[in-house]
């Protein structure tokens, strides 16, 4: 069955340091992959997505992610984080022709000054 694993429930990091948020998925067919960000007391906003083509995708606010088919991973990275990046980040996958998104459990990014 399709599933998404975000191994880190919380990632503390100092401002201006690099960060990587990990996401692994299980699927035997083609997938679309998404990262969403949720700021406190708000809904989810699309950060970036992988549909096909180049495995490195860039999103808003300086984030990027790399699709690795052999490792079934879609890790999110930012070279230098800001205090304003403090939020919860969700990885999501849709499989085959399905319109349903399956979400990971989320990773809380805590940026400290």
């Amino acid at each position, binding site marked *: 069955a399709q599933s*998404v694993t*975000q191994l880190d*429930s919380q990632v503390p990091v100092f401002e201006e340091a690099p960060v990587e948020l990990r996401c692994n998925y299980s699927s035997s067919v083609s997938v*679309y992959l*998404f990262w*969403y960000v949720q700021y406190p007391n*708000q*809904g*989810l*906003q*699309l950060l970036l*997505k992988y*549909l096909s083509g180049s495995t490195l995708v860039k999103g808003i606010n300086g984030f990027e992610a790399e699709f690795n088919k052999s490792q079934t991973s879609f890790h999110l990275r930012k070279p230098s984080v800001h205090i304003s990046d403090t939020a919860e980040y*969700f990885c999501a996958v*849709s499989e085959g*022709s399905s*319109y*349903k*998104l399956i*979400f*990971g*459990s*989320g990773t809380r990014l805590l940026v400290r000054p």
Partner: protein
Amino acid sequence: NAGVTQTPKFRILKIGQSMTLQCAQDMNHNYMYWYRQDPGMGLKLIYYSVGAGITDKGEVPNGYNVSRSTTEDFPLRLELAAPSQTSVYFCASSGRDRGHGYTFGSGTRLTVV
């Protein structure tokens, strides 16, 4: 351009009471979804709809009902509220192009006491 509108934003219910969470979108999206978000658990799909008059169960449908009489509206009904239904509820919608991902509402925080 309102996107996805959810009402109310907050609600406290007593055990056994019923209520309807409202969701409306103005993007002419065919697909609509209801998720619940619990701490550390990510988002779980309750119900979804692929068009007016068509609904189907998601991962956690027990205790909920939905209807889709129009393209714009997708209300979620809670019958006989229980403490286990204390959660944050998100409505989302998507169009025919799966690659665009979902547009989320700002959520309804429900507490059952």
